[in-house]
């Protein structure tokens, strides 16, 4: 029986294992050094905040693995020998494979800051980071202030976590406005305001110079690059992005760049070795996507796809239209298609921005200046139906169509106030159109393209 070994028990590896089991009887082993069982990394924040217990982050009950004949092995792999198809564990153990899948995910970036390895400095990625944080910052009495370095999605989550225990947070963000590499100006500004509204000390255009230690090797303070200001703190969160967690294969014959280099079939340069999820790096980026995508659902999709290939139905990884979501403290964010921030925005991409006069609700619609083709939408505080936008993007609908049928796409809970008519009114004024909103139609929603 063919033995498939998957390194990493995250969403990519586990999705792959589940789908291989659906399609075949192959022997499957998942290796992880982090935890015994698969858990949802995205939910670690809720454990610290007291919304859940760690066991709630585990999507499958513990009997699931045995029942589905998926073997779990806890251990840290030191080296991979592809010639003899052998994995060497740190404790001296070895494991033979027929096909190997690297799904080891990411690790937090460290940019060589002085003091970055002190006690009290942590990322927020692994289960161990959560345990560490619980030790270092159990309460505002123990942790008088925390400084977060790096204004991305993990950074704002860590800020929200610490905030939930009333620990004062200073949030150092390199950019001039929060996440403005991704978000258009208006939205980025709204999030800036929202962060400050939560009493988080947001410092924009601010970099970390060094982290200072007390006599016991604990964090004492940080020094800010621009002003040389010293901020006293007990915990420093490094959340300046993540990079592939692949140190253990650097000495093997598997080709790596920043991540494990893979082709469209998620195959590496070595036969029978594959890579999926955050640690895989496409030779060439797919569409507007990045070569390395550290996104939950792309990991899952790569797992779904590779399971087909491994089970004899070789198919390419073809992620469809880009979509994503996040939550910034209390503001939910969804995006479908491409809406660029000021950085990297193509000349033809025109934006229509609508914001609620009082609430933190807004949308930005991107469309082609010349053809009017709908390119993408960002929504804040309004939920939208994935299926509808996916279809509109496939059908290359123009922006007028999207505006007119926006009610079909609304996914807010029942009885919520709807803003389609306000939105279309502003759109009509700005673009001299005469569009009207169409009533929501179940027939349209369920008609397949």
């Amino acid at each position: 029986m063919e033995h498939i070994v998957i390194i990493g028990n995250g969403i990519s590896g586990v999705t792959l294992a589940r789908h291989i089991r659906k399609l075949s009887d192959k022997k499957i082993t998942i290796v992880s050094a982090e935890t015994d069982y698969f858990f949802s990394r995205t939910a670690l924040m809720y454990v610290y905040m007291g919304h859940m217990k760690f066991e709630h982050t585990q999507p499958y009950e513990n009997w699931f693995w045995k029942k589905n004949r998926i073997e779990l092995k806890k251990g840290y792999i030191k080296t991979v020998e592809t010639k003899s198809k052998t994995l060497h564990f740190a404790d001296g153990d070895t494991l033979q494979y027929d096909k190997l899948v690297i799904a080891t995910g990411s690790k937090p970036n460290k940019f060589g800051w002085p003091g970055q390895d002190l006690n009290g400095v942590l990322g927020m990625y692994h289960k161990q980071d959560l345990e560490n944080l619980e030790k270092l910052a159990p309460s505002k009495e123990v942790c008088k202030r925390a400084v977060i370095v790096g204004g991305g999605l993990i950074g704002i989550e860590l800020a929200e976590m610490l905030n939930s225990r009333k620990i004062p947070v200073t949030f150092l963000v390199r950019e001039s406005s929060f996440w403005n590499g991704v978000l258009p100006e208006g939205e980025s500004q709204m999030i800036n305001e929202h962060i400050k509204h939560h009493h988080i000390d947001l410092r924009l255009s601010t970099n970390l110079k060094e982290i200072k230690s007390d006599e016991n090797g604990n964090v004492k303070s940080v020094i800010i690059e621009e002003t040389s200001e010293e901020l006293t703190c007990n915990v420093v969160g490094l959340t300046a992005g993540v990079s592939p967690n692949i140190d253990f294969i650097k000495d093997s014959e598997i080709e790596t760049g920043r991540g494990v280099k893979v082709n469209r079939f998620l195959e590496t340069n070595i036969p029978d070795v594959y890579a999926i999820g955050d640690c895989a790096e496409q030779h060439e980026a797919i569409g507007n996507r990045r070569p390395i995508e550290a996104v939950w659902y792309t990991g899952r999709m790569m797992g779904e796809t590779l399971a087909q290939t491994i089970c004899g139905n070789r198919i390419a990884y073809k992620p469809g239209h880009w979509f994503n979501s996040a939550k910034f403290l209390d503001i939910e964010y969804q995006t479908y298609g491409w809406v660029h921030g000021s950085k990297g925005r193509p000349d033809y991409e025109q934006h229509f921005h609508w914001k609620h006069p009082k609430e933190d609700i807004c949308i930005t619609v991107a469309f082609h200046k010349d053809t009017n083709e709908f390119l993408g939408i960002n929504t804040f505080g309004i939920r939208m139906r994935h299926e509808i936008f996916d279809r509109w993007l496939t059908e290359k609908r123009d922006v007028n169509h999207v505006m007119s049928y926006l009610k079909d796409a609304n996914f807010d809970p029942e009885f919520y106030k709807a803003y389609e008519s306000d939105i279309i009114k502003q759109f009509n004024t700005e673009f001299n159109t005469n569009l009207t909103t169409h009533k929501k139609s179940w027939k349209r929603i369920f008609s397949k393209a």
Partner: protein
Amino acid sequence: MKAIKHIGLVIFLIGLGIFTALPLLGTFNLNETDFNTIISNQNIKSEVFINELKSEVVGKDFNGMQTLSPKISKAISNANEAHTKNKEWDKKIYTKSSDMAAMIGKTSANGFIANNKGLVWFLTFGLGIIGALMFILPNVILLGAKGIKNDGIYHESATNRGWIGWMVFIFLVSFYLVLYFASEYATNWTLLVDPISEALSGNPAGHWFVYGFMYCVVMTVMAVRMYIKYRHNIYQVFRTTSVLFFQIVFAFLIPEIMVRLQMPYYDFKNAFPLDYDFFFQWNLKNLINNGGIGIFILVWGIVLTLIIVPVMVYFFGKRWYCSWVCGCGGLAETLGDPYRQHSDKSLFAWKVERYLIHAVLVFVVVMTGMTLYSFFTESGTVLGIQTSTVQNIYSLIIGSIFAGVIGTGFYPIFGNRVWCRFGCPLAAYLGFVQRFKSRFRITTNGGQCISCGNCSTYCEQGIDVRAYAQKGENIIRSSCVGCGICSAVCPRGVLKLENGPEKGRINPTEILLGNDVDLMDLVNQK
């Protein structure tokens, strides 16, 4: 603000303390006239009982029900023992001793509590309400901007099965035990709400009136908490208002007013088989003897169960009943909301749920079949089994212990829907309709789920919502009561409760939306 909360908590605990002490306080002295009235009203012929009470109870002072009640139960058992021995069946007393004690206690109560009903009401209910509101209202400011407010739920003793949770458990279970099995100890509580009961129905309050009144008070106060916690979520605001309205108006006010109008006591929203004694002989006779209104209730009750309930479930899902109208659901969604995360999500619990709830449904159907057979044939037995015995077993095991003691008492331990999930036969019936013939579903939003587990954690019915959402499948489950909290707590906007066409409601997905694998390739491989 924090100080107000703390003071409120102290005031609430004082009120609760006095309320809890009341059953053992108070003085009772039964005078000759009242005693004779009871004897003639109850048609008691047992001279053993009459003599024993005359010598032991009448004209004597008792401090606390715990001194009076044993005398009465002893007199009853002595009397019945003697009459059984002498085969004097007509002299035997069939009134339960706790009912007899409650009756005697109610007429003989004198002293401070009986003479200061308003004051003692204030010291119990009044302080409880004021304290609780002082504890809850500052959250408008303390909780900060609107949004999901689940911070610290698993850090707090009260909501994480800590010692406070266990204390609440003990209190609730004891309260229900008193209510169902030792109602004489509720005598002092009934005194406090006498003025309210008299204003409504014209009668003094019994222990069920105390329960009904408390139910409304608790729901109202805890609804205020819901309004504050979910003020960003208009679905929750509407739903809370709806359950509150149906409890106060339909379950509490209308039945009491109907009594005043010489009509049968009836809760128009309480559908069979949740209302398990609707077809019991005494109820049918009562309805039939009550003329037009009685017949109307009889027809309404049947139409409600057979037509209105399933048709509404077809259009809106069982949520229209379970989390918008039902009293049990109403308490679960208000008092029980802080405990919703304790429902067991394991596959094992789901198996237990299916066996139990459907067993109860079968039980109630069989019992009702026997009841109707007995009613129309006027025979007390069916196939040699006494109908009344089956009815008594159901009333005790299901009606009292399961629905009351376990259903509500276990809130802090097993979550707020123990009864609704494992026991309610109406929920089982609605569940069939919801599962097989309904427009209701919880739609999963394509591929947006990140498997975080908030939805499953906060599902009061113990549905592993995430298991469906992460596969891109809609959630179609017979047990879903449509409370909408999964959708509320989802950080990624994945879930939406909606009523739509039946076609495409159940959507098994091999590959999730967003992954554009060539589907023809996939199909050809199979």
